[in-house]
């Protein structure tokens, strides 16, 4: 059984100008110990999906429908009290901006202690000792001194390490990382990615990685789900997705990213553009969500939304025209 099963998740927001269908019927699962990446551009619904999993969407104006089964139990049916016992304990989260997600007036140690005291019922001394252990685990030098420091005394990379320490303090089964390295410099990003991989091996938590950076995806994900305009358009194991993307959007996305080393082959080609823009999610979309920007779109696409079909081994895509079976590379 999968650790997390999401079925027909719909997260809609009531806005003055109509209902914004930020996430519109997304289903996926995460197995124990697996790393699933959710990729897409701003406004595709990837962050709203992760916030919905944690039930962090304010209702109203938001409304979450569907089913989110974690270890067999539907999170959407739980009381607030039951949900609080899950958050930070069984499922925890790392956000993009470590400066705004840490409390600036509390010491780092106190923030790590808090989760441990609430969820694990540790007393102050035990929690303090565990906090120091956690900081050591995430590779912060001089952890004994650092627990007494405030977030502003740490660099961006250090703060993100603290976030990871808090997230992992209670040994969660699932870690949701929403753009964990986007705000960091490349050399620091490399440190954090390595840390996440190491910790995953040691702790064995499943990870949902939300990112727009295809390089990061290739580096640490096992399976990838591509979202566009609130829908899932493609899903495949990471190697398969990069080798033979089936959905025209995924193909466009991969073509739009220059690869390091491109100048060495002697031919620098023009970057592939995806013309146009993301559709307005406040208006109902008939047909394929990508039809407006797709070079292959026909009347069929504009009238009927394609369902997710199997296009290869463990590879599904929502496109009327995507090739099935093995694609010659």
């Amino acid at each position: 059984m999968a650790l997390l099963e999401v079925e027909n998740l719909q997260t809609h927001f009531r806005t003055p100008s109509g209902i914004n269908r930020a996430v519109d019927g997304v289903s996926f699962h995460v197995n124990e110990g697996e790393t699933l990446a959710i990729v897409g551009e701003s406004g595709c619904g990837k962050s709203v999906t992760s916030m919905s999993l944690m039930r962090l969407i304010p209702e109203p104006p938001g409304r979450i429908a569907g089913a989110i089964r974690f270890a067999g139990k539907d999170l959407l049916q739980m009381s607030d009290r039951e949900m609080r016992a899950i958050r930070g304990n069984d499922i925890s989260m790392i956000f993009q901006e470590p400066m705004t997600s840490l409390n600036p007036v509390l010491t780092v140690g106190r923030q790590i202690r808090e989760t441990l005291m609430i969820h694990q019922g540790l007393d102050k001394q035990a929690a303090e000792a565990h906090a120091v252990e956690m900081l050591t685990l995430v590779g912060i030098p001089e952890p004994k001194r650092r627990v007494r420091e405030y977030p502003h005394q740490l660099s961006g990379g250090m703060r993100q390490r603290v976030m990871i320490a808090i997230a992992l303090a209670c040994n969660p089964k699932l870690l949701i990382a929403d753009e964990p390295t986007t705000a960091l410099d490349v050399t620091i990003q490399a440190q954090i990615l390595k840390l996440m991989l190491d910790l995953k091996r040691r702790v064995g938590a499943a990870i949902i990685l939300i990112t727009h950076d295809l390089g990061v995806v290739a580096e640490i994900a096992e399976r990838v789900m591509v979202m566009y305009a609130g829908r899932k358009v493609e899903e495949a194991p990471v190697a398969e997705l990069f080798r033979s993307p089936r959905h025209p959007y995924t193909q466009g996305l991969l073509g739009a990213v220059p690869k390091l080393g491109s100048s060495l082959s002697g031919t620098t080609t023009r970057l592939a553009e995806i013309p146009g823009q993301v559709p307005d999610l406040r208006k109902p979309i008939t047909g394929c969500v990508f039809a407006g920007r797709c070079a292959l779109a026909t009347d069929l696409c504009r009238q009927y939304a394609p369902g997710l079909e199997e296009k290869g081994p463990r590879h599904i895509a929502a496109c009327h025209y995507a090739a099935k079976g093995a694609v010659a590379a």
Partner: protein
Amino acid sequence: MSVPLLQVNDLKKHFPVNKGLFGRNSEFVYAVDGVSFEIARGETLSLVGESGCGKSTVGRAILRLFDVTSGQVILDGQRIDDALPSTMRQMRRRVQVVFQDPFSSLNPRMRVRDILAEPIRNFGLAKSATDLETRVTALMDTVRLPREALNRRPHEFSGGQRQRIGIARALAAEPELIVCDEAVSALDVSVKAQIVNLLQDLQREFGLALLFISHDLAIVEHMTHRVAVMYLGKIVEVAPRRQIFAAPRHPYTKALLSAVPLPDPGAKRSPIILGGDVPSPINPPKGCRFHTRCPYVFDRCRTEEPQLRSAEGEQWVACHLDALPTG
């Protein structure tokens, strides 16, 4: 050799911090600390490096958004770092800028028409009202925005479209050099590709020189002619594109390149992961500034600062290791 379009000689910019009692400055941020380079006409030079390395400060110094601490900025043979306001005005027309954030760099109260007309009026480029109108509509065509959009205000546009407006505004002054300060960093992947392609087209069409400030090495490799790598206010390596990406020489450049995640799950490589953080530019390390994180550090690096020297052809490196005889 002809005169380069832009010459920067030993540029320094130190910002005072910790204003003490009676406004005395006790410390300085050594944001840019002795940087020299040239840009030829029609050339793209990229400044790369991590946050706080001083790359944006260099860009701003060239635009003369502040006065420099010391050093020279020479545009087409004429010094602009100490030019008087009257001469500076004409020089400003020749160097324009595109900023990172298309949301905060456009005046939300102005219509696109006025945003584009302002530099044309300011520098007296239009002969008549009709000429102004022709120029403004032509700019919209150039950046591939619909002409109807001229009467709209910035908030009605997406990020990518706003960046197009920002580029059109820079082009309005008919510059020779455009400083692109992280101009595509805030954009989504597919939109980023559109803007990168647009910048390359414009460069060819107008023979523009670009100072492309970015931390995204893959984009830099895609569009640059030469690259200067900065670390803590210094250039550590400068070289033509092929050399820097095929055979980086400075240990920092090597680490930087190897840290970029590749969009290729099968790629086999062993990234050099640097320990620690970038030291504070208030108190930069003595000797080579990179010595605290360098995997190849030896005694000399801690005491003596390496100078940029030509390693191979156009490739310049500031590293003691590189100066040692090989073999």
